[in-house]
């Protein structure tokens, strides 16, 4: 598990090439490895956005108007749950529960929790992430 996590962190996702390499290193059939990767929702075999958003779908978040916020997020990003934005900035997923029920509604962005979400807070956060991304691009140039 930890090897897969580390490979994903290094390369962004688990491509066929990387999985083949891990299978050789660990001396296990690629089919078994692929079966493991596909079982866990946090492993990805396709390229992911710079920011992976996992929106919590637990009943506590639903009770705190999470469903409306989820729709809002889909609209803002222009992708459905499970999709990645065309510019490669955001991937949007839904997760079962991130254990932030006391601060619902909540979501994880690249593994970091963001809680007590509202339309305003979401808008501000997306703006901040986009600006950070743009700043980095300028610096690179």
């Amino acid at each position: 598990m930890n090897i897969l996590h580390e490979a994903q962190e290094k390369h962004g996702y688990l491509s066929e090439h990387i999985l083949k390499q891990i299978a050789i290193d660990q001396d296990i059939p690629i089919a078994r490895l692929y079966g493991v990767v596909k079982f866990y929702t946090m492993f990805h075999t396709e390229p992911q956005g710079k920011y992976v958003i996992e929106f919590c779908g637990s009943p506590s978040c639903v009770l705190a108007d999470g469903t409306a916020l989820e729709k809002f997020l889909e609209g803002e990003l222009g992708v459905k749950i499970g999709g990645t934005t065309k510019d490669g900035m955001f991937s949007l997923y839904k997760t079962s529960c991130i254990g932030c029920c006391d601060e619902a509604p909540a979501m994880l962005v690249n593994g970091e929790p963001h809680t007590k979400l509202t339309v305003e807070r979401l808008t501000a956060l997306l703006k901040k992430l986009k600006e950070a991304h743009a700043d980095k691009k300028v610096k690179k140039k």
Partner: protein
Amino acid sequence: MNACAEGQGWKRSGNMQILRQTNMEALEKARTLGPDGVLELLEKKGLEGRGGAAFSTARKWRASRDAPADERFVVCNADEGEPGTFKDKFIIRHNAETVVEGLLIAAYVVGAKRCFIYLCGEYDYLRPRLQQQADDMLARTKMEDVTIEIVRGAGAYVCGEATALLQSIQGFRGTPMQKPPHPTSCGLWGKPTVINNVETLTCAAQAVLFDDWNPALRLFSLSGNIKNPGVYEFPLGVKMSTVIDVAQPKKKLKAMSFGCFGGIMPVDENMAITPEAICVEKCHHGAYSIIFMDETVNVVDISYSIAKFYTYESCGKCTPCREGTIRILNLLKKILNGKGVKKDLQVLAELALHIQETALCGLGQTCGNHVLTSLQHFPADYDHYLKKGAKS
């Protein structure tokens, strides 16, 4: 009132038993007592597992220690993922040293050299600090031949089930296995393995050290339509009215759900919260996580979100759960869309019962509870959607 509120904002409360630190003194005492002495002490103090099954911790440790093998393992189950439950995160954030000390005491008693902490993927942000704390503790104990590895989960709720968790640590798909053999005799790589919940291990260290340790105190995770969500400590047998007083509902309460698998039931203020009282209601207390719903909520909406959860988290190994959860979800969707008919309710109940009787693991056996209990207690909520459909 023996209740200490943690409330919003992760404020610590010095009164909470679970936050008492043992500062390596529990491990020292355990070494003085010897493995048998620790087992006797824990048995006397009545420590039970806090993951939901309430099995005697001393019996579990003893079974593992006495199973013939050349190697043994100890695992801390930190794969908290049950919706509405966040007590383990609270403990890891505020008293991780005591969790690690409990793990080391378990390793000492059963004679294990390799310890694992299986941390759920959603809590990965807690990992660097936890690893540091574990390393520091190990350095302080000078137990050079003992290691603690954190295994990172990756978003599979079913891995909280003991056998699935073991599969995951070994690098397989996290699917539950048939029991027996139990992990205490045949766990990781076929060797005896003790698996304890975060709260259980914390309590183990505290029970060893503190004479006044109270076995009746439980952590409650409260959330939903309330003003004061958070982690609270209450003694078993506490009146529901006391819990509600602390939780402070926003509006008049209508229903509550013990996690996802517990089932949805009406709020009975006079109920004393004990496993017996809750099980009579055909609900499961689990890890004492309560999601409160007020009168503005239609229970079918919540049942639908729970059904989504089960469909998403079913591991797919056994047919009743894999197929049944999808059928339940589709039926609820049909009802919510105003296309349901009376007969669908009967089919829902039959389906839920059928899965309960035939599924392999706890996830499958409880995945119909929310349907059965909501149908029983809140038929009007279903009627609301059926009538809505009939009108249009």
